[in-house]
């Protein structure tokens, strides 16, 4: 049961990442692209955690935590750049 559920949820997350990639490419404005990139970070965290469950390995947890932190910091930095024209004033 767990194998089938893992395969189905990996497929659904892959479809979600493809939809985000469409919004990154097409998105008419800059905040759209930043939002789609942020969503891609979140979905890739879930994919890495799923891969860790698949292999039964705990090492991938740290990669997911790193991606979470870097994704948040980069989103806030790019938004700050759009707001102020500068990141650190």
């Amino acid at each position, binding site marked *: 049961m767990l194998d*089938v559920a893992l395969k189905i949820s*990996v497929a659904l997350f892959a479809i979600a990442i493809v939809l*985000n990639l469409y919004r990154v490419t097409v998105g008419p404005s800059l*905040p759209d692209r930043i939002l789609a990139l942020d*969503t891609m970070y979140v979905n890739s965290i879930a994919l890495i955690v799923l891969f860790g469950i698949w292999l039964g390995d705990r090492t991938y947890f740290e990669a997911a935590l790193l991606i979470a932190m870097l994704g948040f910091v980069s989103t806030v930095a790019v938004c700050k750049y759009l707001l102020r024209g500068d990141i650190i004033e």
Partner: protein
Amino acid sequence: MIALYTLMEGVIAFFLIAGSIFALIGSLGLTRMKDFYMRLHGPSKISTLGVGCVLLASITYFSLLDGGPSLRELLITIFLFITAPVSAHMLSKSALHQKLARDPRTRGEPKEFQEDDEQTVEEAPQGDSKLP
């Protein structure tokens, strides 16, 4: 004991399927909505909930594998649940700053859209008064 393992496997499978469906609905909203302010809703709420469900499944799985509680994935969950509203707030502020186009049926007028001429008038005397 076998029944417990089967039950927990069902719980993990339910969390995995529910989380991936939530994340897919959030990304579908990001793709299909008309307006940036509408598109912000899907990823900032529903995708975060989906990833939270997947991390809950991971917590359950590794707790069952270890035979004790393994709560390290809870760190990612708490971090995501704290940072998702902050990044959504920053994104909406930058969209209001850029004055992105919105759906004409949207009600209300945010104050970033109203003050076009008054800002330049108000900022000039402040700059003079702050000079030593």
